[in-house]
């Protein structure tokens, strides 16, 4: 028996434990035997323990470069730095599913442990529904994507990890993203359980909110890391391409954001019960749909991973079984949770939450249609289309203005009823926003009316949100996230309207002018590294004030597998990024140089970080309230 066999066996035992947990949970609901609770607890721990063992076995195989394991052979190489040997584990289909299982099993254990003061039947139903997902994924891994397949004869060298995946941001991107994705499975199971046990009330909402916050925060982080990777590594100078793979991480994010707002209403006012349930179910469905679209190879995208139809069909069936189960449960038990017939006053926080939800659902539908429509159209009419940025810009941007305006007043509404009285501060807000907008528009020399209106609404949003910090009894987590969001939208707007780009073919010694800067191509260096060799261009940029900035774009030729990648040289300053890539031209004398000025790039990352800090703050803030 090799070590890989142990890994496989361990997964098999994990699956058996899942069945036992499922069985015990069902028994425990029927009979009132308290001692089963301990057994469920034990087997949940055991299930997690088995998964972690196989995870470590695979990790060990990657670390010692055990090429008798097919996953290691296809995705690793002896000359790879140790950091990427580790990240190589989840840089492929099989390993990433093992990571998914690890997070899945650890979360349900954590849920069971942390929900001791909640109703017994609710907890057991959550475990039952969650185990259905766990079992589904166990079988998926064991049947179609076993990470412990053995190769014989043992190859002496591996194929290596795709060099564009050898990047620090991308190395930690999957674990962070998966915590976000998998967190939605707990939300889903808990929503179904609450439905069945008639526990959809403010207590449930209060407890679920931390899970929503955890998933939301991690999902935001995962998306941020993915964007950072696309910007620094892909070398196209952009951070969001409306690529299907990006869209499918945005969709659960949008529905989670809607749920986050909706669940507060349920917590505080005991309203929107069914809607909360639907959002919980939809969020998880979108996560699984994402897995399906990425893992099945149904999409033709820059980062499609696997191309095995049998995997796709398995996830597709799994997805539809889960949708079917949740629909049936929803229809049977919907009447058990009677919606409060409270009137919603139109000037209230309830209304603003509803407005937020309508916008989120609209954005979600646009992204969903843009992602799915080409697939359906292809099958039904065999017409092939590609949906790109123009589609999203046209459909999303006009709706952003009212969205920002509502967002700037929404959080200052009160629950139940808000009385609007004239205040002097309103005039101040209006004048200040107008002034700031005029100054901004002047500096950007913008004449486009839509952009001017967007700037106005965003400035208003930023000011109103900042003012909320000064209030008493205010939710700082929410304020931070909202402010971060306003800053993010402003940065993206500035970035997209005032980026510049120059493409030139030049020799060593040549120089060219971009706006008020003179760019000189000084020389070419070559370097040998452990897993690649590189050609480095040395550029000097001189601006009006005679300040010299050096840029060293690189062309890397990796040895395993042999792939040339272009490493962008990026100089980040507070207000703009200078972005340069070079490419070789056949006669070796000339280099193709692409030089871009990208204003406010770093603010896109910083403001997303602020959103994440806001989410983290809210998670810990809530915990304080529990005690």
């Amino acid at each position, binding site marked *: 028996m090799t070590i890989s066999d142990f890994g496989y066996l361990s997964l098999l035992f994990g699956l058996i434990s899942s069945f036992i947990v499922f069985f015990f949970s069902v028994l425990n609901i029927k009979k009132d035997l308290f001692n089963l609770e301990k057994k469920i607890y034990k087997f949940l721990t055991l299930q997690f323990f088995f998964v972690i063992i196989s995870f470590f076995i695979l990790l060990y195989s990657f670390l010692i470069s055990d090429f008798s394991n097919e996953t290691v052979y296809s995705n690793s190489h002896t000359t790879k730095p140790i950091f990427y040997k580790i990240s190589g584990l989840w840089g492929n289909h099989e390993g990433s599913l093992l990571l998914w299982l690890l997070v899945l099993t650890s979360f349900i254990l954590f849920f069971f442990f942390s929900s001791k003061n909640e109703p017994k039947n609710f907890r057991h139903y959550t475990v039952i529904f969650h185990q259905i997902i766990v079992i589904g994924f166990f079988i998926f891994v064991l049947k179609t994507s076993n990470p412990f397949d053995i190769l014989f004869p043992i190859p002496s060298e591996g194929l290596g990890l795709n060099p564009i995946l050898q990047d620090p941001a991308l190395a930690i991107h999957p674990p962070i993203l998966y915590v976000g994705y998998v967190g939605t499975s707990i939300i889903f199971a808990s929503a179904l359980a609450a439905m069945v046990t008639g526990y959809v009330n403010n207590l449930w909402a209060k407890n679920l909110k931390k899970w929503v916050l955890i998933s939301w925060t991690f999902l935001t982080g995962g998306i941020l890391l993915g964007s950072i990777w696309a910007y620094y590594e892909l070398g196209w100078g952009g951070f969001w391409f409306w690529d299907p793979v990006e869209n499918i991480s945005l969709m659960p994010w949008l529905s989670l954001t809607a749920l986050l707002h909706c669940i507060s209403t349920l917590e505080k006012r005991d309203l929107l019960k069914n809607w909360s349930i639907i959002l919980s179910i939809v969020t998880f469905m979108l996560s699984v749909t994402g897995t399906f679209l990425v893992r*099945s190879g*149904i999409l033709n995208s820059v980062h499609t991973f696997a191309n095995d139809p049998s995997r796709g069909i398995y996830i*597709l069936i799994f997805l539809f079984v889960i949708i079917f189960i949740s*629909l049936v449960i929803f229809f049977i038990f919907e009447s058990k949770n009677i919606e409060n017939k409270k009137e919603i006053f139109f000037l209230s926080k309830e209304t603003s939450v509803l407005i937020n939800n309508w916008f989120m659902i609209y954005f979600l539908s646009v992204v969903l249609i843009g992602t799915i429509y080409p697939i359906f159209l292809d*099958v039904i009419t065999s017409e*092939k289309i590609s949906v790109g940025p123009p589609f999203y810009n046209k459909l999303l941007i006009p709706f952003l203005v009212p969205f920002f305006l509502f967002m700037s007043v929404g959080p200052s509404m009160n629950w139940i009823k808000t009385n609007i009285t004239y205040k002097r501060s309103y005039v101040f807000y209006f004048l200040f926003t107008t002034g700031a907008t005029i100054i901004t528009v002047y500096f950007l020399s913008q004449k486009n009316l839509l952009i001017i209106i967007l700037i106005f609404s965003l400035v208003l949003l930023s000011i109103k949100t900042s003012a909320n910090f000064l209030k008493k009894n205010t939710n700082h987590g929410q304020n931070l996230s909202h402010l971060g969001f306003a800053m993010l939208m402003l940065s993206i707007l500035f970035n997209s309207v005032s980026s510049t780009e120059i*493409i030139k073919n030049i020799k060593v010694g040549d120089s060219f002018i971009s706006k008020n800067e003179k760019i000189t191509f000084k020389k070419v260096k070559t370097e040998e590294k452990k897993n690649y060799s590189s050609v480095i261009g040395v550029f000097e940029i001189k601006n009006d004030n005679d300040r010299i900035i050096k840029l060293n774009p690189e062309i890397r030729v990796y040895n395993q597998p042999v792939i040339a990648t272009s490493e962008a040289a990026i100089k980040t300053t507070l207000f703009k990024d200078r972005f340069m890539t070079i490419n070789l031209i056949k006669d070796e004398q000339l280099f193709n140089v692409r030089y871009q000025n990208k204003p406010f790039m770093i603010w896109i990352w910083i403001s997303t970080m602020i959103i994440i800090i806001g989410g983290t703050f809210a998670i810990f803030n809530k915990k304080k309230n529990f005690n």
Partner: protein
Amino acid sequence: MEVHLQFLTKKKILISFALLAFLIFCFVTLNKALNENKIYSPIFKNEQVIYLPDLNLPKLFSSDEILLGEVAKYKEFSLVNIWASWCVPCRDENDFLKSLENISSLQTIGINYKDKKKNSIKFLNDYGNPFKYNLVDYDGTASIKLGAYGVPETFLINKNRKILLKIIGPINNDHIKRIREITND
């Protein structure tokens, strides 16, 4: 468990059926999409004949459009090459394409993929223009219809747009030999 059958109202039954029908539709479509082969290869199953779709494409050096099928009729064989100025392998490929100029029965058609006009013309000036006809696919939709999934990609077709050879990635010496064999040069 106390589940009564009260939940079966008329409205609910209707919604359930509508949802169920919709789900079945989605499932069938997605399942079909999964099993469909998106990249058609020249190794045709059962002697299957595949034709390159006929499309109207704008010309690079003028503003009018032309039908691909129209251009294909001018000579016995056409080599349709999808390229872009930002595509590095397209540069290496350029010499190979030029070497095909002496085949009398063959004409080359270049389709410029998702590119800026300025850059693409500069590319042709810098490396030489190997194409008899230069057409443009600004947004990449034409290439998808043609069944290409990236640049560079090349189709060898006959007068009737029947696909004789499909090359994914840059052209190499072996491909050149194959093209010469097919065109009897």
